[in-house]
């Protein structure tokens, strides 16, 4: 049974946060959903894609978040309800469009759902989307639990249509990727024929052309819309208070942090002393509601992730109201009560409360904790991240790393975002020497490749995944070709957007809904741009290395090497192993000169383990996926491969 569509009104289910968001969109009668895969948001579009045929939706994995927003906006302009989901980075990528969309306004309800990653559990940053709402002057909603993820997304469409602008609903990892109980509402469909009306007057944003000009006029309209939303927020059921009328300490919080605060209050038994104001409407703050609560106490603790957005907005409001409500003492990030970086949890809240209220709390003795640490130090060796067994990236970076060492001119690789980002670690032989955003690998390489003008004589390489290629590499590659930058781009084509769950992209012949779709040929595009293109199978280590050495030493200009081999986690690869592997212990040189445990100490595929007693390597048949690469790595031919039946 597919709960997402078959669950009925009034029924209660255990649902992942992202599924709750998807359900909320379905209950609002969404017609179009777009996004770009990004942890922790990917399941929103994945879920909607799965039911797209059944619910008559159009669901698209767009090439990047900017285009995703544009596609969703088009649906809105044509009178349909649309949703656009992404991780926090996506708001940055699409912000230029969003800036203009916020001025032009929308028609059918459009809801933007960024899923932030405080603590960077699956990101290379812990940046925030909330500030964009304030900066771009659009309403911001923050669900505080799983029920609200559904209910607030649903309501966001209504809000969007009431004010004719896009609404941001911000989630976080600890809600999107967590699960909780959700009671369902009724599914609905929109029976609107899509039609883009533009025949009205120039200034008429509902019936005329969709333009941000004249800017001052439209900007004033945008601000009026925000004021209107603010008025609605005063009575919103998503702002809740629990606790005494005049609490000793008032906690103002939003998002999942309210669950941490609730837990901390319970653990410390402070229900009668501490009040908890959970805000669901965090931009703009409803001033009358805020005033009412600020009045009720002298001490206020503001709890949020990550940087003090809510804290500063509350303080500004409190400053404006100072003559009416008096001076207050604020606790939060700015005074160090809560850490300024990383995610929060119940224990950090407990620390804050014990400090402010001068109480003590020890769930476990320090002696226990110390002893546990000691035993764990001995008995729980840490787990470094690594590529999966059978991952083509391990083979690719083996060849790239070795080619660069043999070339011996301090050549380096500018990294990009995907599973292959792990190549900055020992699992990828530390090959990546820079790492920033999608497409930054080629962008930065394009810059390095011009520095021979200033005496730089190091070979410059960049890597890109197949999905990354379409997201942001294309313009950078054009830049490199047109500006005659000497770089080598290695495209790691594993036929999918692997890190986030193997979603499709324009290089593949299927779309988000699983239908056949025209694919865009990456090597042909590179050639059309003006780069020279070569190919290799990364599992053929020697061939790949030799081709790279040739490319490093012949001629100038932009060269592309496409390394094509499917991801080890893809359904295709999981369905059937390529090889059965065997290791002849009598041939294994092990720790001796001539090998020094190359496969387990350096190559480090988790499918190979070192037997300390016998002093030989062994194949772990549970982990090994049979890619066959280690047979080429072993210097004594102890590892053999045989085609699996």
């Amino acid at each position, binding site marked *: 049974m597919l709960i997402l569509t078959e669950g009925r009104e009034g029924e209660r289910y255990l649902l992942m946060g992202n599924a709750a968001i998807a359900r909320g969109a379905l209950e609002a009668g969404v017609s179009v959903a777009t996004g770009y895969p990004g942890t922790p948001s990917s399941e929103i579009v994945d879920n909607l894609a799965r039911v797209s045929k059944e619910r008559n939706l159009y669901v698209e994995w767009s090439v990047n978040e900017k285009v995703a927003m544009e596609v969703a906006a088009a649906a809105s302009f044509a009178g349909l309800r649309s949703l656009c989901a992404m991780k926090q980075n996506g708001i940055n990528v699409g912000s230029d469009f969003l800036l203009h969309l916020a001025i032009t306004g929308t028609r059918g309800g459009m809801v933007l759902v960024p899923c932030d990653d405080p603590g960077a559990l699956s990101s290379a940053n812990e940046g925030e989307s909330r500030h964009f709402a304030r900066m771009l002057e659009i309403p911001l909603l923050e669900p505080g639990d799983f029920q609200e993820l559904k209910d607030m997304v649903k309501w966001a469409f209504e809000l969007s249509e009431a004010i004719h602008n896009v609404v941001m609903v911000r989630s976080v990892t600890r809600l999107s990727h967590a699960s909780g109980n959700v009671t369902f509402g009724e599914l609905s469909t929109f029976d609107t024929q899509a039609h883009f009306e533009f025949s009205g007057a120039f200034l008429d944003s509902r019936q005329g052309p969709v333009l941000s000009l004249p800017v001052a006029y439209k900007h004033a309209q945008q601000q009026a819309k925000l004021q209107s939303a603010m008025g609605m927020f005063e009575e919103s059921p998503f702002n809740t208070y629990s606790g005494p009328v005049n609490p000793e300490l008032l906690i103002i919080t939003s998002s999942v942090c309210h669950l941490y605060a609730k837990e901390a209050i319970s653990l410390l038994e402070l229900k009668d002393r501490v009040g908890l104001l959970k805000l669901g409407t965090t931009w703009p703050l409803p001033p009358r509601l805020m005033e009412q609560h600020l009045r009720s106490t002298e001490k206020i603790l503001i709890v949020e992730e990550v940087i003090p957005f809510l804290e500063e907005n509350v303080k500004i409001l409190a400053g404006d109201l100072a003559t009416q409500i008096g001076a207050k003492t604020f606790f939060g990030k700015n005074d160090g009560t809560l850490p300024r970086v990383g995610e929060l949890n119940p224990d950090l809240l407990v620390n804050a409360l014990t400090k402010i209220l001068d109480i003590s709390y020890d769930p476990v003795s320090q002696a226990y904790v110390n002893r546990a640490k000691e035993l764990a130090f001995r008995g729980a060796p840490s787990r470094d991240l690594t590529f*999966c067994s059978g991952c083509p990236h391990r083979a690719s970076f083996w060849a790239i790393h070795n080619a660069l060492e043999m070339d011996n001119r301090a050549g380096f690789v500018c990294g990009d975002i995907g599973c292959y980002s792990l190549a900055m670690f020992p699992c990828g032989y530390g090959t990546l020497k820079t790492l920033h955003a999608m497409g930054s690998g080629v962008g930065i390489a394009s810059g390095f490749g011009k520095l021979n003008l200033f005496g730089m004589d190091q070979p410059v390489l960049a890597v890109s995944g197949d999905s990354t290629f379409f997201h942001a590499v294309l313009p950078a590659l054009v830049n490199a070709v047109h500006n005659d930058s000497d770089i080598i781009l290695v495209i790691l084509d594993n036929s999918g957007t692997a890190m986030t769950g193997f979603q499709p992209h324009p290089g593949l012949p299927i779309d988000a809904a699983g239908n056949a779709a025209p694919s865009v040929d990456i090597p042909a595009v590179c050639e059309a741009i003006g780069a020279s293109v070569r190919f290799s199978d990364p599992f053929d280590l020697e061939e790949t290395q030799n081709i790279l050495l040739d490319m490093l030493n012949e001629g100038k200009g932009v060269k592309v090497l496409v390394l094509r081999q499917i991801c080890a986690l893809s359904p295709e690869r999981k369905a059937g192993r390529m090889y059965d592997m065997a290791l002849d212990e009598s041939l294994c040189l092990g720790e001796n000169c001539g090998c020094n445990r190359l496969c387990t*100490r350096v190559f480090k595929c988790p499918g190979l383990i070192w037997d300390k007693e016998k002093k030989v390597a062994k194949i772990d048949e549970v982990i090994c996926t049979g890619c066959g690469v280690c047979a080429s790595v072993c210097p004594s031919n102890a590892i053999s491969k045989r085609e699996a039946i």
Partner: protein
Amino acid sequence: MGKVPLVHDPYNMIITGVGGQGNVTASQVLGNMMSREDLYVTIGETFGASQRGGSVMSHLRVSSETSWSPQIPRGRAHMIMALEPIEALRVLVDYGSPETKVLCNSRPIYPVGVIAGDMEYPSQPDLRTYLEELTEAVWIVDATDAALRLGDPILGNIVMIGALERVGELPIRREDFKSVIAQILTADKIDMNLKAYDRGTELMRN
């Protein structure tokens, strides 16, 4: 026909293992098994990059009163179900207490640091000693071996769920398991999963 009542409210369980072991599936199955009219379930997960060979944890909270945070507070885990043995020990540092109970799979997955020879992996007797010192009760079961004999190592997590029923602290029953998997699996897989569950309960009888 009574189900097992909650020994603690909220009852806090951590399911831990290595990325790729079916940690998330296990927590979802258990969560759904317990998601009854009068029980609130919250599950907190970390997946994504951590799945690439890293440690993973699911925090499972069950309560009759309200929804709790997706992160268990320090020192408050009542039960640790570990699909990989050293992860149980690792989790105890932050979330363990002398009252914690541990149900642990025996099969190691060696961290790359151990494979590379930079670190040592503890022997099973040593690990059991460490776990027993820090907790109230420890059960170690050969879940992966049982799963291998059934034909697929990934069934290890289901074997563990069957074993967990026998521990007797959580309101879970075989019927709950059966109805949950009927909803999420295709018909051809149900039989194998039930076998795995039963194997788990059998392992605890010894």
